[in-house]
């Protein structure tokens, strides 16, 4: 039945899960993002697709020419391009999610006051958190598909497990977007936002996209392995290179925890900001 009365719609949520903070309408936030995307944001989204492709061309084929083949733990040998491709896929899923959930969110929070506008309607903070994070997740999904369309014809993928890299990229985007939005909702100045950039670049360079962590001393390896990007790269790499063990589930669990923590923290923070 279609209810077309705002009050009746809100009343129909009585007794539902988290009725005060969740109206079951996260999808309308995605509808909004789609409209905004059509209006202008598509260029920024497109650039996120080219970034890993350019890295792949430069490092994979340029530098890879000097490096030659890479031996894997399971005894197989792969080209350098095939070795870094999963790292780049994981990184692009992360970057898309982080861009959406940090700068975009910061702008909407501080200057356009869009979340304030949403929360003065019968939408709840959980709807807003899930809807915004959901859009970042869609973006991760699109990047993963786009990147696959490049690496599969290039012959860098040789096994069927690689298809799992797509849901893995979605999970990675989900995790990063959740945490990114939670952190951004605590920030109030541009200077604080710069911390995000400061944290992202070294993580990208040193988390094992371009070479294995075994080049580092043990304690540094431990630190890097605790970071989400290493977890992401390992998960995607295991799938694209076909090294599938139960161990992958640990990476999955890592991101599931990130998502739960991030969504909860974001919803709490939005409630604190706009519905004290």
């Amino acid at each position, binding site marked *: 039945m279609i209810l*077309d009365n*705002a009050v009746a*719609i809100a009343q129909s949520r009585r007794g539902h899960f988290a*009725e005060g903070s969740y109206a079951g309408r996260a999808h309308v936030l995605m509808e909004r993002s789609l*409209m905004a995307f059509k*209006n202008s944001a598509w260029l920024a989204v497109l650039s996120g697709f080219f970034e890993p492709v350019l890295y792949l061309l430069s490092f994979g084929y340029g530098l890879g020419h000097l490096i030659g083949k890479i031996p894997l733990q399971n005894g197989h040998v792969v080209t350098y391009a095939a070795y870094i491709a999963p790292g780049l896929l994981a990184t692009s899923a992360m970057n898309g999610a982080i861009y959406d959930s940090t700068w975009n969110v910061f702008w909407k929070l501080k200057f*356009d006051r869009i979340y304030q*506008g949403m929360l*003065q*309607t019968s939408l709840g903070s959980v709807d807003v958190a899930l809807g915004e994070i959901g859009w970042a997740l869609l973006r991760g999904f699109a990047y993963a598909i786009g990147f696959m369309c490049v690496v599969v014809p290039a012959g860098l993928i040789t096994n069927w497990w690689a298809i799992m890299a797509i849901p893995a990229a979605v999970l990675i985007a989900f995790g990063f977007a959740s945490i990114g939005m939670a952190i951004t909702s605590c920030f109030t100045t541009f200077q604080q936002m710069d911390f995000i950039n400061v944290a992202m670049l070294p993580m990208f360079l040193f988390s094992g996209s371009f070479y294995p962590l075994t080049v580092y001393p043990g304690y540094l390896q431990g630190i890097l392995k605790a970071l989400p990007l290493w977890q992401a790269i390992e998960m995607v790499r295991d799938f694209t290179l076909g090294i599938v063990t139960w161990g992958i589930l640990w990476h999955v669990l890592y991101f599931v925890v990130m998502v739960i923590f991030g969504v909860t923290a974001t919803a709490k923070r939005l409630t604190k900001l706009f519905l004290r």
Partner: protein
Amino acid sequence: MTNSEVLIEAKQLIKRYGDFTAVAGIDFQVRKGESFGFLGPNGAGKSTTMRIIAATLTRSGGEITILGKDPEKFGPEIKAHLGVVPQMDNLDNALTVEENLYIYGRYFGLSKAFIRPKIEELLDFAQLVEKRSVKVEALSGGMKRRLTIARALVSEPEILMLDEPTTGLDPQARHILWDRLFRLKEQGVTLLITTHYMDEAEQLCDRLMVMDKGSIMAEDSPAGLIKSYSTKEVLEVRFGSDRNAVVAPQLKELCERIEVLPDRILMYADDGEELLHQLNQKGLHPLTSLVRRSSLEDVFLRLTGRTLID
């Protein structure tokens, strides 16, 4: 009017932020179809009260019900009853005028089929038909306000809440906005308005609550307030900034009450012209003089000893 249904009822409503008390135990009722105003200077507690009603701020004490419901228990439902026009515009700059109306309806869970014809009606009401495909950023301040009001009406709310609706607008834009609000009032929409402009309060409100420092100073119709707290007319005189204080004691003897402001003296009397005549007879010749009707500004001055806009 007095017999109609009570939509909002507050009893001893309190809001504290740490040691600071923003709303200090106020009581009021708003009835269906009424245009109710909170008049007071910045920091009087008007916006805080509005936010408590709109279920976006929790109270520290007292009771409040909106259509019989407690906003802390039925937040989403209360918000569905209300149309909110905040003090600072929070339109969606990434979207066009039309899209702003559309998506706002979607936030309430309304269907496309319901919203589409509604958009046409609201664009017409807000006089923004030609701007429908324009991005919000490109609109003037007055247009943005009209769009914000139109947006608040998309869910057909029972109560429209306007927080300082014309602050920052030029006189022409203000008059257009007042005209639109007047139409809503005629249609029977219950309006809740905060303002620190007395002309706005006089134009739009049937009943006013004068607030200062979180408390209610008085409550009545604009005309009733003026009648109770001021004389019919006011004579404004200037003797120059040095002499104002010197002549003040002499002026005090001539009328009911005077107020010495930094730049002028206000003399309260039922016949301003007659008072000016007496002044001249006494040999007190002000540099400038003006006789006007009493306004809410005078009421406020009487109640708080301060002017509305400092």
